[in-house]
Structures are given as C-alpha cells and as structure tokens.
C-alpha cells in the first residue's frame, strides 16, 4: 500500500520535472542569447547596430556591424510572402471551413499537412532549380535568386499554418450567426463575407501572424534562394540576405569568442524577441474568437 502511493507521488514529481524543463529551455535560450549578445556591445554601439546598414564584421581594420539592411531584407521577404499567402490561405481556409463537403475536407486537410511536411531545404532547392530560373525568364533578370523568389517560397511554406489556424477560427463561428443571416434572405456568399469572416476576424489575424512568424524565422529556404547580397534592398528584384541567413552563413566560420561571434548572438536575440512578440500577439488574438453560446 505504502509503496504504491510512494510510486504515484514519485512519478508525479518526475513528470513535473520533465514539464519544468520546457520553462528552463525557453529561459535558457533567452538567457544564452542575451548573455552572448550583450558582449557584442562592448565594441559596437547600439546606434551602429540598429541604425546603420553596413554589415562587414570581417573587414580588416574597420569592421562594421549595422543590421538595418538584413532587417529590411527580412521585412521585405516576409511582406512579399504575406501578400501572396494571405488571400490564398484565408480563401482556402474559408472554402474548407464553410463551403467544402465533409468528405472533401477530410481528403484535403491531410494533403495540406503534407505541404507543411516538406523540409525547408527541399523548398530552397526548388527555388534554385525552378522558381528562380522562372522568375529570371519572366522578368528578364540575369539571376532569379531574389527577394521575390524567397517571398514566393515562404508564401508556400506559411500557407499550411495560415490555412489550419484560420480554418479552425472560421469553423468555430456559431451556426446561429449564419442562420440569422440566411433567414434575412442573404445568400451563402453574402453570409460568408458579411457575417462569418468578420466574426472570425481575430482568429484569422492570429493565423496570419503565425504564418508571418514562420516566414520571419525560416532559414534554409532564404539562405538558398535569395542570393545573399549584403546591401540595402531596393525592391523585390534585388538579391537579399535576411537575419536568419546571416547567422547561418557566418556562424560556421567565425572564431569563437570574438565580437563577430557575439554579434551573431545579438542578431539571434533580436530574432528571438520578434518571434516571442509574434507568438504572444497571435495567442492573445486567437483566444478571442471562441464564442460562448
């Protein structure tokens, strides 16, 4: 009797330990980024880091550490991805949640999940061998590895996230909302646009923000498919180098413990904070669409 209850309690504490590890890991990631990232600012001024666009840490004599160009690159590629993925994703989610039959939905959902399962390195490869050359041909560029290429690929990668979360939000709109609209003589389309989508508004925004988070944090695809040019991008036809790609390119060859090494952790810390804000924002919004009826 005693032993059984002892085991029960021991297991509870053991499993609590496993669960608490997640908190430690999150704090550990943040602490590690901050601890290493802050050391970079012993030699770099905050103003240089955030407000200049010249990143050349290995320059002989006068290294420079401005992240503005890569911040703009990340922003540009993400913006392009969202311009493509938001109408497509929300449209597809609306179809799946409200128009498709149950049978169609059961077939399409796993297929869309399959899109999410494609490794990012394979998407990047497709960008190199297919989408990039296609862009080069259509727009008459010498090289298709541009911000546009990255935006298209990231759009495809963030679609499953946007569709899944938005569909959930759109489906959770109570039937009584629709019935009220139908009873006033509105047809299905008017009901969708004027009643269902506005009711699911905050959930849809949460879906878009989560998709955006995926695009901002994606590394291999942009590393392979956007040309990695370290300059302020002027538009979608320029090659760009994002924050994630910069870490991926430089961490492998930088000597341990140098300002350059620490500066990459500072970039990582900024990226981590962005992803944290994105998550908290999405969570806050997603909590709002659950109607209590």
């Amino acid at each position, binding site marked *: 009797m005693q032993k059984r209850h002892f085991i029960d309690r021991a297991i509870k504490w053991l499993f609590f330990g496993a669960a608490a590890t997640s908190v430690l890991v999150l704090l550990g990631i943040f602490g590690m980024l901050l601890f290493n990232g802050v050391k970079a600012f012993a030699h770099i001024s905050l103003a240089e880091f955030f407000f200049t666009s010249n990143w050349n840490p290995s320059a002989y004599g006068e290294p420079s550490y401005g992240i503005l160009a890569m911040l703009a690159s990340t922003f540009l590629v993400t913006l392009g991805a969202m311009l493509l993925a938001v109408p*497509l994703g929300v449209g597809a989610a609306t179809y799946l949640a409200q128009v498709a039959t149950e049978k169609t939905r059961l077939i399409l959902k796993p297929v869309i999940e399959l899109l999410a399962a494609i490794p990012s390195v394979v998407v990047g490869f497709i960008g190199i061998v297919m989408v990039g050359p296609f862009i080069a041909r259509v727009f008459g560029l010498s090289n298709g590895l541009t911000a546009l290429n990255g935006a298209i690929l990231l759009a495809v990668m963030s679609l499953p996230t946007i569709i899944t979360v938005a569909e959930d939000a759109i489906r959770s709109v109570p039937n009584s909302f629709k019935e009220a609209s139908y009873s006033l003589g509105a047809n299905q389309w008017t009901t969708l646009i004027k009643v269902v989508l506005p009711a699911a508004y905050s959930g849809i925004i949460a879906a878009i923000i989560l998709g955006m988070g995926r695009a901002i*944090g994606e590394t291999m695809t942009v590393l392979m498919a956007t040309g990695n040019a370290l300059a302020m991008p002027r538009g979608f036809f320029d090659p760009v180098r994002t924050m994630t790609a910069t870490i*991926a390119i430089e961490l492998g060859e930088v000597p341990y413990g140098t300002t350059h090494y620490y500066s990459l952790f500072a970039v990582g810390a900024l990226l981590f904070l962005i992803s944290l804000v994105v998550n908290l924002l999405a969570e806050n919004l997603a909590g709002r669409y659950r109607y209590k009826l």
Partner: protein
Amino acid sequence: MRQNSLQQRLGLNTLRFFVLLVLLFLGIILWEVFSKGSGVINSGFLFDYPRKGMTLGGIFPTIMGTIFVTLVTTIFAIPMGIATAIYLSEYANDNTVNRLIRASIRNLAGVPSIIYGLFGVAVFVQGMGLGSSVLSSGLTLGLLTLPYIITTTEEALKNVPHSYREGALALGATKWEAIWTNVLPSAVSGIVTGSILGLSRAAGETAPILFTGVAFYLRYLPASVSDSFMAMPYHLYILSTQHHAIEEVRPLAYGTALVLLSLVFVLNIIAFIIRYRYRNFNKARI
C-alpha cells in the same frame, strides 16, 4: 437579386480556385523532385559512398547519419515529451506554475530553428563540451521537436474518456496505475502518430544541425554519438549551393531530394494511417 447570385458564383469559384492553387504548389514540388530524381535512384545511389569529390557515387553515409541522429532525438524527445504531456493532462491543475509551463511550450513551438542551432552551439557543443557530434545535434533537434510531441500527446490523452480513469480509481488504483493501465493504452496510437510526425520534422531539419555536428564529407560512418556525421538535408544544401561543380552534380541533388522527401512522406503516411484506423476504432468503441 440576379446580380447577387452571379456574385456568389464568382466568389465561391474564386475560393475553389485558391484551394486548387495550393494543391498545385504541392503537385509541382512533388513532380519536379520525383520526375527528375527517380532516374538517379538505384542500389548504388542508396548504398555507396560519395566518390570523386561528391560528383559520383551515392549518399549512403548521409542516410545512415540522418537515421542515427534521428534515433538520438527519439531517445531524448519522446520520453521527455510524453512525461510532460502526462503531467499537463493528468496531474497539473490550473495554477501559475502550470500556466507558465504551458506558455513556455507554446512559445518554444514558435522559436525559429536557427535559434535552436545557436542554443545547441552555445550549450551542447561548447558549454557542455559535447563537441560537434551526433549527440549535440540529436539533443538540439530533440528540443526543437519537444513542443510538437507534447502538444500532440496531450491531445491524445485528452481524448480518452473520463470514465476510463474513474473506473480504475473506483477500484482503488492510484492515479499512476489508472494512467498506466487505462489511459495510456487507449491513447497509444495518438501518441505514436504525434511522435512519428515530430521525428519526420526533425529528420528534415538543416539549420539546427548546421553548427552542432553535421560534416561536409566523411569517409567513415559515425562509430559513436560523439562523432560528427553526414546528413541528407545538409548534403542537399551542399550539392545545390556549395559544391564546386554545381551543374554537374544536379542529378545527385535531385536524387538526394527525392530520398529525403520520400522518407518524410512515408513517415507522414504511416502516421496518417494510424490516425485514420484509430478514429474508426474509437467510433466503434463509443
């Protein structure tokens, strides 16, 4: 009225078109990789080492490396993930500490994979002195997949009817005995599904292993967890961007992409089948 129904037809067809477009993206990617990669696949490609500066030969060590590192990830992440999920689903009440745990897990799921790579370098490779190794990479990938395994396992546990627990408790079982004999057996297919999907994700990741253990080229398979390794995703990255004769090795890159994609898809399809049969089983039971 007439205009309204025209609008409706136009609108609904636009939505249909969007869904088709999404499916088309998937189709194009699969077609590109399968049509151009299948010509390269033969037993030599699967079971030989790369030769002549990786312009000839196969990808055997990259397949073995990916399997080896995913195995380490499994050993670490699955028990850890299941234990956390059991705690959250069965033991945890709604207090500040447990809310903090849940919030941490949700946020970990959104952390970019390259950040896990940075963490792996600072903590496993340098901090704990594990070096550039299978173990460092496996643990880094384990942390990355942990939130996913926890979430899916918790979902599976939540789907087990309350009466299952109550029946055991009424017979005098302790909480753990009720979980072990009544809850886990009913949730096992959901747990397996989630774990397989989590591992398929880990197997395809590149950014977290980039600096924690993967190697450009090795002449031997890793003999222990403290050796570095070759991996399929990294090999594809090398062949398509870093190789000295990129055009010449393009067929090999397609072949690598095909094998990697097949591995991931087979895992996903297995998970799907388990989930599908489990759903029918559950319907029959209730």
